[in-house]
C-alpha cells in the first residue's frame, strides 16, 4: 500500500505539472523558452521516477480505491517511458518551430503535458470506462494542438477532419462499452477475458459486437487500413512538432491499450485472428502505396506511419500471450519513436518560416549546405526503412522473427516485402539531399534546441540497436 504511490507517481507529476503550466500560462508571466524548459523538466522527472523496475507481474495499485481499474507492469512502465520521452523531445523541438513561425503561446506546453498524462493513464487502464476517459483527455488536447496555427487554412481543415474522426471513434467506443456492459454487467478487461475463455466469444453476440466496436475505435486512432482515410491530411495540416507527437506518443499509448485488450486475454485475439490478419496485410500495403504517391515530406511520413502500424499489428498477432512481456512491441515502438521524432525535430528546424520547405525537391542538395543535418536525417530515414546499424532494423528483425516463430510465415514474408517497398520513398529524400545540386541556402532562424534534440535522438537510434531483446 505504501509503495503503491510510486507506481502512479509519474502520472501525478505529469498531471500536476500540466496544471502548473496552465496557471502559468494564464498569468503570462514567463517566456516560451521557460515554459518549454519547465515541461522538459517535468517530463525528465517523471522519466527518472519511471526507471524504478517493477517486475513482470501485474501490480494493481490502490485496489481498495481504484477497484482494479489500473494495473502496472514492466510493459506499462516502458510504454510510459517512451511516451514521456516523446513529450520531452516534442517540448524541446517545438520552441525552434515557434520561433521560426512567429506564433505559439504558453498553453501549447500545458496542453501537451495534459495529453501525456492521458496517455500514461491509457497504458495503465484495465477497464473500458477508464480507457474512454483517458482517450478523451488525449483527444481533446490533441484537437487543440492540431489547430494551433489558427491563421493557417490547412491547419483548420486538419482539426475539423480530426474532430470528425475522433467523434466517430468516440461514438464507436461508447457504443462498444454499452454493449459489453449489457452482455456482462462489467467493463473490466479481466471480466471480459474470463467470460470469453469460459464460453467462447460468439456465445454472446452483444459481447462480440461490443468488442468489435471497441477494436474499430482503437483502429481509428492508430490508423489501421480501412480507418486511415483522413489521417494523412490531419498529419499534413498539424504543426510539425504536433505531427511528430501524434505519430509517436499517441501510437504508443493506443498500441499499449490494444495489447492489453488483445493479449492479456489470449482468447480474444484468437477469435479475431482472421480479421486481424487481413487488416494487417492491407494496412502494410495500403500505407506503402499511399506513401509512394506523395510529394510532400510530411504526407509521406504520415503514410509511412500507417505502414509502421502494420508492423506493430504483426507483432500483436504473433507475440505469445502466455508469457507476455511486450518486449518486441516496445522495442519497435521505441525505435520508431526515436527515428520519427528525430526527423520531425530536424524538420521543425529546417522547414523555414511558414513551413515553406515541404516537398522532397525543396531539400535538394541539403548535404552540401548543411552536412550534419543531412547526416542526421539520413540516419533517421535508414532506421525507418530498416537498414542494419540502426534501431529500426533490429525492431523489424525482432518482429519478423517473432512472426516466423509464432507460425505466421505469410506475415513474416509480407513484412519483408513491405520493408523493401518502403525503400522507394525513404531513399527518395536521401537521393534528393545527397545527389542533387543545392538551389537553396537553407537559412534558418530560431533557437538551437531542435538540432540538439535531433542529435540526441540520432545517438539514441544507433545506441538502441545495441540493446538486446529477449523474444
Amino acid at each position, binding site marked *: 500500500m505504501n509503495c503503491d504511490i510510486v507506481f502512479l507517481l509519474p502520472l501525478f507529476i505529469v498531471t500536476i505539472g500540466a*496544471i502548473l503550466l*496552465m*496557471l502559468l500560462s*494564464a*498569468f503570462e508571466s514567463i517566456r516560451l523558452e521557460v515554459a518549454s524548459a519547465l515541461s522538459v523538466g517535468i517530463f525528465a522527472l517523471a522519466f527518472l521516477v519511471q526507471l524504478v523496475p517493477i517486475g513482470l507481474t501485474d501490480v494493481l495499485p490502490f485496489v481498495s480505491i481504484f477497484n482494479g481499474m489500473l494495473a502496472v507492469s514492466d510493459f506499462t512502465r516502458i510504454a510510459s517511458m517512451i511516451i514521456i520521452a516523446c513529450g520531452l523531445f516534442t517540448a524541446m523541438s517545438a520552441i525552434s518551430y515557434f520561433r521560426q513561425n512567429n506564433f505559439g503561446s504558453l498553453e501549447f506546453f500545458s496542453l501537451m503535458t495534459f495529453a501525456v498524462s492521458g496517455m500514461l493513464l491509457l497504458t495503465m487502464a484495465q477497464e473500458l470506462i477508464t480507457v474512454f476517459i483517458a482517450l478523451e483527455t488525449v483527444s481533446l488536447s490533441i484537437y487543440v494542438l492540431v489547430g494551433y496555427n489558427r491563421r493557417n487554412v490547412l491547419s483548420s481543415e486538419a482539426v475539423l477532419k480530426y474532430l470528425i474522426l475522433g467523434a466517430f471513434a468516440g461514438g464507436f467506443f461508447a457504443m462498444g462499452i454499452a454493449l459489453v456492459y449489457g*452482455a456482462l454487467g462489467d467493463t473490466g478487461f479481466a471480466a471480459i477475458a474470463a467470460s470469453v475463455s469460459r464460453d467462447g466469444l460468439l*456465445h*454472446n*453476440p*452483444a459481447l462480440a*459486437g461490443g468488442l468489435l466496436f471497441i477494436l474499430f475505435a482503437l483502429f481509428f486512432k492508430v490508423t489501421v487500413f480501412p480507418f486511415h482515410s483522413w489521417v494523412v491530411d490531419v498529419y499534413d495540416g498539424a504543426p510539425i512538432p504536433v505531427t511528430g507527437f501524434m505519430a509517436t506518443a499517441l501510437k504508443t499509448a493506443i498500441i499499449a491499450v490494444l495489447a492489453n485488450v488483445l493479449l492479456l486475454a489470449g482468447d480474444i485475439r484468437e477469435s479475431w485472428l482472421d480479421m486481424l490478419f487481413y487488416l494487417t496485410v492491407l494496412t502494410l500495403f495500403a500505407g506503402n502505396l499511399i506513401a509512394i504517391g506523395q510529394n510532400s515530406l510530411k504526407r509521406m511520413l504520415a503514410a509511412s506511419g500507417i505502414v509502421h502500424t502494420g508492423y506493430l499489428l504483426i507483432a500483436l498477432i504473433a507475440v505469445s500471450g502466455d508469457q507476455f512481456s511486450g518486449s518486441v512491441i516496445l522495442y519497435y515502438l521505441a525505435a520508431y519513436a526515436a527515428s520519427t521524432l528525430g526527423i520531425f525535430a530536424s524538420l521543425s528546424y529546417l522547414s523555414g518560416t511558414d513551413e515553406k520547405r515541404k516537398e522532397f525537391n525543396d531539400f535538394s542538395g541539403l548535404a552540401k549546405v548543411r552536412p550534419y543535418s543531412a547526416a542526421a536525417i539520413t540516419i533517421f530515414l535508414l532506421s525507418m526503412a530498416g537498414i542494419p546499424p540502426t534501431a529500426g532494423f533490429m525492431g523489424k528483425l525482432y518482429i519478423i522473427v517473432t512472426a516466423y516463430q509464432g507460425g505466421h510465415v505469410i506475415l513474416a514474408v509480407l513484412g519483408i516485402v513491405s520493408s523493401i517497398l518502403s525503400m522507394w520513398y525513404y531513399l527518395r529524400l536521401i537521393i534528393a539531399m545527397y545527389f542533387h545540386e543545392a538551389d537553396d541556402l537553407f537559412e534558418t532562424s530560431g533557437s538551437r534546441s531542435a538540432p540538439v534534440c535531433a542529435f540526441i535522438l540520432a545517438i539514441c537510434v544507433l545506441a538502441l540497436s545495441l540493446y538486446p531483446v529477449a523474444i
Partner: protein
Amino acid sequence: MDLELVLSAAALIGLAVLIPALMLVTAIFGPRAKGKIKDEAYESGIGATIGVVDQKFSVKFYLLAILFLIFDIEAVFMYPWAVSVRELGWFGFIEMVVFMLFLFTGLIYILQKGVLNWR
C-alpha cells in the same frame, strides 16, 4: 445463445436498416411540389428568415463554456457526496478537497483570462 439477445440485436439492426431505408424510399418516391414560394424558408409565421444563419460568434465564448462546466461538474459531484458524507468520512472529505482544488485551478485560469470583464 440467448434468444432475447438475438432478438434485441435483430431489433437494433432492424431499426438501423429500416429507418434510413424508409427515409430513402420517401425521398425517392414521395410526391413533391416545387414552387418559388414553397421553396422559401419559413420561420414561425414570418415570411423571410431574419439575419444570417451561419453567423460567426466570438471565440471568447469558450470562457463561458469553461465557467459553466466548472460549476456544473462541481454540482454533479457535490450532491452524491453530500448524500453519503457520513459513510465516506474523512477519506471522502479529502478526496473532495483535492477535486475542488483541481476545479479551482480552472477557475483561476478563466478569471485570469478575463471571463468576468465582458467587453
